């Protein structure tokens, strides 16, 4: 009997041990039903605050404005948020005035202070391994030539900028492909290619200054060509970069590509289409925004805009769940912006009022 009880006890405790190690019983700190949604980044009014996050639950249709504030005990976002990037259960927010990198969890709770050291006018970012590469314009930028702009190599684990990689020309959009970092230069007609191992920089010349990338399924890049005041160009549209050869393969012209920041182009889930924001004149010669569609298979833009006459169009993204287009408009920097939702056919679905100057959105699940 004694032996039976001993064996039973051993068996009992062993079973208990294994069952307590079952990960399925650990509570998920970021449950999907709380995280799932579209998070709209409202830039606000530069130097005067006003930035915010709006959360749109696309399954219920419920919009929550000032989401960051409600998740952080009433704390306002003091920086104007230029860009948001989701990576490994963290969301990185690029803040201007003050310049900082803010890290929040998928519930947009900020546990630690933003990082300000060696971060000056951050624009966008992209991650690779333990590093976040951040495009920065530097302090007191020379807006004509941008000689002092750089990439900050930010260690995600230690939350420090380990290195500043000098990159004149105003780096804006960033992307990683084939083990290399690509930087769209907004003040120079080129794309910079940075070897992530050696940090050596080479350039691919482009017919116009560039702003953002979209990476296709083969790892090649579409980059937007824009006509800017500082560096004008007659050619605007998309260029296609072969990231194996680092050559510009071809250019697809599209007139009046938007010079807005953060999210002027996006792809749908199966990468059959690219959507690009443009500006155009309506019948009364008033300038407004439009969405052009690029067919990836035929490599052509549709002759007619999918959506047109959108006033104050600032950004576009696609809901990966249903393929709907989310457009962000903001005519003033102190008033409400709008989220406008369209079906892939261009049919209007609904609109919601969001924060001031909505620039982009990320989807979390």
């Amino acid at each position, binding site marked *: 009997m004694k032996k039976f009880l001993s064996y039973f006890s051993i068996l009992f405790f062993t079973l208990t041990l294994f069952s307590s190690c079952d990960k399925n019983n650990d509570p998920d700190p970021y449950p999907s039903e709380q995280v799932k949604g579209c998070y709209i980044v409202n830039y606000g009014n530069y130097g005067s605050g006003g930035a915010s996050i709006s959360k749109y639950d696309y399954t219920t249709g419920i919009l929550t404005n000032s989401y960051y504030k409600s998740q952080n005990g009433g704390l306002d976002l*003091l920086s104007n948020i230029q860009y948001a990037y989701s990576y490994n259960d963290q969301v990185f927010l690029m803040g201007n005035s*003050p310049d900082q990198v803010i890290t929040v969890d998928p519930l947009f709770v900020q546990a630690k202070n933003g990082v300000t050291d060696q971060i000056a006018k951050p624009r966008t970012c992209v991650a690779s391994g333990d590093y976040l590469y951040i495009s920065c314009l530097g302090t007191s930028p020379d807006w004509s030539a941008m000689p002092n702009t750089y990439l900050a190599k930010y260690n995600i684990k230690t939350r420090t900028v380990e290195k500043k990689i000098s990159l004149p020309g105003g780096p804006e959009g960033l992307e990683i492909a084939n083990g290399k970092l690509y930087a769209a230069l907004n003040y120079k007609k080129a794309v910079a290619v940075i070897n992530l191992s050696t940090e050596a920089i080479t350039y691919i010349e482009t017919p116009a200054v560039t702003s953002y990338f979209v990476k296709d399924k083969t790892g090649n890049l579409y980059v937007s060509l824009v006509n800017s*005041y500082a560096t004008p160009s007659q050619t605007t549209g998309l260029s296609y970069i072969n990231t194996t050869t680092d050559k510009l393969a071809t250019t697809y012209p599209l007139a009046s590509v938007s010079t807005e920041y953060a999210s002027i182009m996006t792809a749908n889930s199966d990468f059959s289409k690219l959507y690009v924001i443009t500006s155009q004149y309506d019948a009364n010669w008033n300038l407004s925004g439009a969405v052009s569609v690029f067919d990836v298979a035929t490599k052509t833009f549709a002759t007619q805009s999918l959506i047109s006459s959108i006033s104050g169009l600032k950004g576009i993204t696609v809901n990966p769940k249903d393929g709907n287009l989310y457009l962000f408009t903001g005519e003033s920097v102190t008033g409400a912006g709008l989220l406008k939702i369209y079906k892939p056919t261009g049919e209007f679905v609904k609109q919601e009022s969001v924060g001031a100057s909505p620039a982009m959105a990320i989807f979390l699940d």
Partner: protein
Amino acid sequence: MKKFRVFTVLFLFIYATLPAQMKMTKDTILLEEVTTTAIAKKYQAGAKIETISPTQLQLSQEGGIDQVLMRFTPIYIKSNAGGLSSIHLRGTSANHTSVNFGGINVNSLTLGSAEMSAVPSYLFDGVDLQYGSSSAINGSGAIGGSLTLGLQSNWTDGVKMKATVSQGSFDEQFYGTKIFAGNGRWESVSRLYYFYKANNFSFKNPYTGNVEDRTPVNDRQHGANIENMGLLQELNYRIGNDEQIKSAIWLEHDWHHVQPNMQTNLHYTSAEELDNRNIRFWSEYQNNKHPLKLRGGLGYVHDMQVYNKDKVQKIGTDRMISELEASQDITNSFGFKAGVKYQYIVPQVYAYSDSIIDSEQHLDAYFSSFLRIRNRLKLTINLRQMLVTNFSVPFTPSLGAEYRLHSEERNLLKLTSNISSSYRIPTFNDRYWGTQGNPNLKPEDGINYELGINYLHTSDNFKTDLRLNAFYMDVKNWIEWRNFGVWQAQNVKEVRSKGIEFQSNTDFKLGEIPIQFCLNYNYNPVKAVKDVSESGVVGNQLVYTPKHMANSWLMVTYSRWQLNIDGSYTGARSYDDFGNQLNSYLLANCGLSRKIQIKKQQFNGAFSVNNLFNTNYENEKYYAMPGRTFRISLSMNLNIQ
């Protein structure tokens, strides 16, 4: 509001039907009013025009005109500590108040407004502040009101000098001198000043962004230095008793850091800079020898702004101005003036294309007339038409009336009313900035209705001037820069501003001690009633426009001592279109001065405290303002010959 407008119009026409069997007013009251009435009032019956007294100017002589307006008028000035300040008169924007010096409108033609902190009080002898539209007199931009900077004619015989030195908190320094020289016929008046402030005041910073510890921290303002200097040189020649030439050149150099907001100040690395240089020259010939008086003027203005030392990206204009005017008082009761004014403007802005704009011409033609009926009713009419190259400007009339309801030896009760149309042509930046300029803009177009009652009482030891005004203003085609596809100026909304303004100025004696006291209060709801944007806010009080403003000032003079105390109340105001508000606040200032005479020369020593109660407030969201500050100053009036 319809009733208000109808009532105002009726008021203008019923004056003449009132019985006129009342006693003539004693000359003293009439005379006093006439001698203090500026030329502008002569042709603007019913307009609310306030003169900032020389005493008030002197109490704020170290700063810009914004300090004077903030302390002694119930006008909202949106400002930070670092040199940026804009006037919002009757709920309008800074572009809607014209600032005039001689025949020159000082407002920037590229930006539309005049920086209030860059108009130094020290250089001027008087400031007239007109509330409400006056475009028929002052031209484009005078929708909310106007400021006229005045120089007094002294016709000095001898040499006199005034000098002021003051030192204040946070390394504030002011040095100013005025030299008057003349022989009663020729006169030279030189006014110079230099002002510097490090502005490194301490404050409690609540905007730390520290998620781990949200306690406000002790912080010190960085990057808010100010350095201003100016010279105003007059050369005047009196040809005869009724003929004179007066010239003045005003050179101004204003530099300041762009003050970082509080959240950036904590991690301060460097600040950007704004540098403004201006040359304003006005010369005027007056001939009053004949019944038909003639006046001719010539002027030149050079404005240049450089941001952050980037001399490639300059923003400036040059303009030549000429004006001819004839006026005649046909009788004591009827007179007129008519004139033309021409401007030739050349912009020097890096973002403009020469093929689109290399110069612009403006021509104003105007006519004004006054009519007094039985010394009791005064009517005025002003007509103005401006012509601009490639731009259409509306015809701008105004009508005014004043009626002496009750008039006797010591009391005067007046009813006033005024209807004025107004306009503002879009700025050069609005129309020609790079590829974003909008040449299709319409001018802003306003109408202002005003009703007022004014009571004057004077006795041996007591004098009071009480005014109550009600106004209604409607401005259409209000211009704002918005993003409709690209950022561009557009005619986006219609704004209605209305309100009640109470103003009192009282002088009395307590025993032998003269006391001056003033109390002002404004109630001013201002709303957009139409907006072209889908998400435009309509029906809410405009951003940075308090509904309630009040101020009070007391001056007591005893022997050679003088004590002054002033206080102001700024009501709550929103800072965005989401209804988020900045708290109301009270500010108080005080000062003590003493006259000293040494060998027939006059000196004046003063000690003053600003923000007496160390109020912690934000005028502009996220921008720190200084707490209590101190200043000592020494002024001298020297008769050299």
